[in-house]
């Protein structure tokens, strides 16, 4: 029995998504009348997991697994699943989780539902609600296999704190031949990434040129937000591709998404509409983004954004 959850950490510290999937696993375990076991790689302090519903943590400490390897991690999680006799395995929607989940599904012969947004509506048959058609619809999916694999959408279930504490146990899985080895990692440091951001500030072609991004960055700074851009902006080379959000770019599921000078093409909206609150600033009141947004200002970004920065600074100073 039990529900197994893969909790991701970075530099030994658990990510927010790890606590979110732990909270989700707890909800599933409560429905099934069982406990939650987490598997964590090279993490030291596991108390944060105990505060989010985890009863037991399997700690894997192995220098071979220092950089993420989907095959090895999937194999380790599969071994833990079998040892624990877990019936449900929960992962997140991070790039790494989405990388290993299909491999894990094959190892476990488990049916896999990704982008799940709610706790199961029923555990027998095991039925979950997931997004489909790039957030334009939901799909209830029943998983029919003995072991079920659930990938939870980012920022959909939220964090649920509990007062419990987790016991830790060392776990030493066997490591398969890796097949893929990391040569180098190029990671932005000191900046909030789109994947982790609670708030994303995004600029479009309405900003007229890359030289005008200073105010987008300043607005992001004030809010502790990540910066992003629309597809034309990345195609024009004004901003790096890694900032492109939308259907063919990165998906965004932040609490707040602020679009400046973005008209809101359907491909753009498809990538960002999992965000909870959307704000648009655009000169054109007919811009499609106004139909998708919660709040909007019809106005010139070059006037509105500096005022917004000023007001936010005053607001932050009061907090």
């Amino acid at each position, binding site marked *: 029995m039990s529900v197994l959850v893969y909790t991701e950490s970075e530099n030994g510290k658990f990510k927010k998504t790890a606590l979110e999937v732990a909270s989700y696993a707890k909800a599933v375990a409560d429905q099934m009348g069982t406990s939650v076991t987490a598997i964590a790689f090279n993490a030291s302090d596991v108390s944060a997991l105990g505060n989010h519903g985890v009863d037991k943590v399997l700690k894997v400490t192995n220098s071979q697994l220092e950089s993420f390897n989907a095959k090895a991690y999937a194999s380790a999680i599969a071994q833990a699943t079998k040892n624990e006799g877990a019936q449900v395995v929960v992962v997140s929607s991070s790039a790494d989780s989405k990388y290993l989940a299909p491999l894990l599904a094959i190892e476990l012969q488990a049916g896999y539902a990704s982008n799940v947004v709610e706790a199961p509506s029923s555990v027998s048959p095991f039925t979950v609600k997931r997004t489909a058609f790039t957030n334009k619809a939901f799909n*209830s999916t029943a998983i029919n296999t003995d072991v079920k694999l659930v990938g939870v959408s980012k920022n959909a279930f939220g964090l649920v704190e509990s007062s419990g504490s987790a016991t830790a146990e060392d776990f030493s899985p066997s490591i398969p031949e890796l097949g893929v080895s990391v040569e180098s990692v190029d990671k932005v440091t000191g900046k909030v*990434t789109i994947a982790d951001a609670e708030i994303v500030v995004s600029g479009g072609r309405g900003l007229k040129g890359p030289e005008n991004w200073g105010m987008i960055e300043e607005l992001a700074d004030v809010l502790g937000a990540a910066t992003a851009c629309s597809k034309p902006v990345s195609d024009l080379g004004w901003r790096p591709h890694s900032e492109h959000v939308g259907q063919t770019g990165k998906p965004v599921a932040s609490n707040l998404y602020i679009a400046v000078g973005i008209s809101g093409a359907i491909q753009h909206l498809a990538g960002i509409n999992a965000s909870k609150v959307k704000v648009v600033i655009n000169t054109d009141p007919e811009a499609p983004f106004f139909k998708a947004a919660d709040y909007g200002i019809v106005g010139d970004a070059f006037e509105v954004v500096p005022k917004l920065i000023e007001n936010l600074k005053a607001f932050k100073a009061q907090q």
Partner: protein
Amino acid sequence: MKILVCISHVPDTTSKINFTDNDTQFDTNGVQFVINPNDEFGLTRAMWFKEKQGANVTVANVGGPETEPTLRKALAIGADSAIRVNTAAKDGFQVAKELAKVVQDGGYDLVIAGRESIDYNGGMVPGMLAGLTNANFVNNCISLEVDGNNAKAVREIDGGKETVSTSLPLVIGGQKGLVEESDLRIPNMRGIMMARQKPLQVVEPANAQAETDSVKFEKPAPKGAVKLVDADNVQELVNLLHNEAKVI
């Protein structure tokens, strides 16, 4: 090098998303179908391997006869041959198992699939295919070079990218970056004419079973109208975001 490009036949992004049969089936009425965008980036990269390294490129799809125009389009773009596995699959697992048989029968060195389809967004076929065929796997792949049996790939990670080395046989989950949007090819008349002569083989399914059932679809609740704030009263937006939306 033998390359298989997996092609998903998906509704165009601008399609209206509706459901029929008591919200259990996608309503294809009036919907234009296209090559899944993530697959098209991979197909275009495959064309580069064909032109520069003499690779042979086959495209494959699991689906009914209605998906053939999408395969013909891939042939018109430049693929050498096409395979359609004649079954309407119920989930990604079933698709992956059917494609695994195609890969094993055809002895492909490199399989290029899109990181996810824009309809069901499962994001599982490439990885499952790698698992089923014991191939190496790189997901969210934004750059791929192959030299003999060795491959160098770049994958997008949260907050950056990672360069990896691996070897064939290899499956990638591809996306934009493998080629740029401007590199995508629109089939020309000659390509369309040639595509009619190219082999499109229909194979019967291996009768793989699905492991999940789609129970029901629903559309999100309609969104309320946008709340407009006057451009001269930006402070009001800050108040709303703090007091009403509670996001700052």
